[in-house]
């Protein structure tokens, strides 16, 4: 068996893991932003009075859950650029638009987790005590005012636990972008497993990095929950 320091020696390739982790966080944040937007839109669609909106929202959430992220990622990456090029060529002009791996990853992850965020926001909106909305109406608030002053702040508070969970899942799901070549942590570890001749060490250290990110995210989530609950007295 190898001596411990020898076991952990990644022969100079180790820093690539840290760079990969940085990209993991980067694409995670970008995708989270997209999924928050899509989630809010989706929840509003599913709760809307218009049936076609409700239907679209429902289709969105079910379709997205039905296809593996890996496959979605490959479709968007290989097919998406061609589609975009065709669309653009219709307007004339040879604009070269490139969906690089980062963008493809952000789009797919944002799209997929937007569906989960939809469910979280929808549950959050449904959980707001009806009395609050009634009170707002009694004060002759417009629907817009009710939404922005009563519904939205409370929905955020109620959504934070679910969103915190979403972030953790999303962070791990960034590993799928490795199949389209994005040099995040999973990809980097896959790349250096051969030159270092130490695949176990490589993946184990990568695991530790993921665990560190998860643990840190957990801490941040607890703080966010506390912040969002400020002023909320549990009656």
């Amino acid at each position: 068996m190898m001596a411990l320091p020898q076991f952990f020696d990644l022969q100079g390739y180790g820093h690539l893991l840290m760079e990969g982790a940085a990209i993991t966080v980067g694409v995670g944040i970008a995708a989270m932003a997209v999924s928050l937007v899509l989630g809010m839109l989706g929840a509003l669609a599913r709760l809307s009075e218009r049936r076609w909106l409700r239907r679209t929202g429902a289709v969105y959430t079910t379709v997205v859950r039905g296809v593996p992220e890996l496959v979605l990622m490959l479709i968007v990456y290989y097919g998406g650029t061609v589609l975009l090029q065709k669309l653009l060529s219709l307007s004339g002009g040879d604009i070269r638009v490139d969906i690089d791996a980062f963008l493809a990853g952000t789009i797919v992850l944002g799209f997929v987790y937007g569906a989960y965020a939809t469910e979280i926001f929808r549950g959050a909106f449904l959980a707001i005590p009806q009395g609050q909305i009634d009170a707002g109406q009694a004060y002759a608030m417009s629907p817009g005012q009710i939404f922005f002053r009563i519904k939205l702040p409370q929905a955020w508070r109620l959504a934070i636990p679910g969103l915190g969970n979403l972030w953790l899942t999303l962070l791990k799901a960034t590993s799928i972008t490795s199949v389209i070549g994005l040099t995040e942590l999973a990809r980097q570890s896959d790349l250096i497993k051969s030159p270092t001749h130490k695949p176990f060490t490589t993946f184990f250290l990568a695991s530790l990095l993921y665990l560190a990110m998860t643990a840190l995210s957990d801490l941040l989530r607890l703080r966010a929950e506390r912040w969002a609950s400020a002023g909320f007295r549990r009656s």
Partner: protein
Amino acid sequence: MKFVRFLAVVFAVAALAGAAQADKRKLIVATEGAYPPYNFVDADGSLQGFDVDFAKALCEKLNADCDIIKQDWDGMIPGLIAKKYDLIVASMGILPEREEKIDFSIPYYQSPTALVANKSAGITAGADGFVDPESLAGKKVGVQRATAYETFARQKWPKVEVVVYDSSESADLDMTAGRIDARFDDFIVLQNGILKSDSAADYARVGNIWAEKDFGSKGEGIGVRKGEEDLRDAVSKAILDMRADGSYQKIDAKYFDFDIYGE
């Protein structure tokens, strides 16, 4: 919202970049980065190898400003078609099925192909000097996906279990782990990879080395999109120029002890 804004920025930048076309043309070159010694990534994370040096010299000859990027082998041709880049300099063989989709320059080197097997696997050469297909029956041969080697193995050796990998390096790793009995790839790559590993003594080449024409390949070429004949011809001319003025041979000498250009 954010996405639309982002797209708008991308359009703007692309349009501006197109407008600001200087004397030097801008070319993006794709290589795999997992195929040493032709192309690989070193500890700094930068691309190195024969293909990389060759591409840089090629761009000089073309008077072009080049960016060399990394692209997974699977997506190499789709990426070229989708205009993610303009040239493929990644040790890609000029095969008929590839020529249906993209164009190639003249060959820039000839790749020797060989089968390297575990000595204890019982794979032997036949009377003609090449690997005996019968001795391969039921064995596991590791190849990279989307290569001529995968196609050849499936067509010529139907009794073989062809195991496909994303990259040559992954296949080598499994060979040392004992998951496959043989590797079928470019011989120089195999010499650099599996035959340089700690357990290299367990492996040996079986049978003769194949030349590109045995595969129906004209050699390794530079990939160019269809419809860009002038770029393709410029590249072919540049290759010949590099042969004439010795710059090719200089790069060759850095990596190999023989002239891989062939012919």
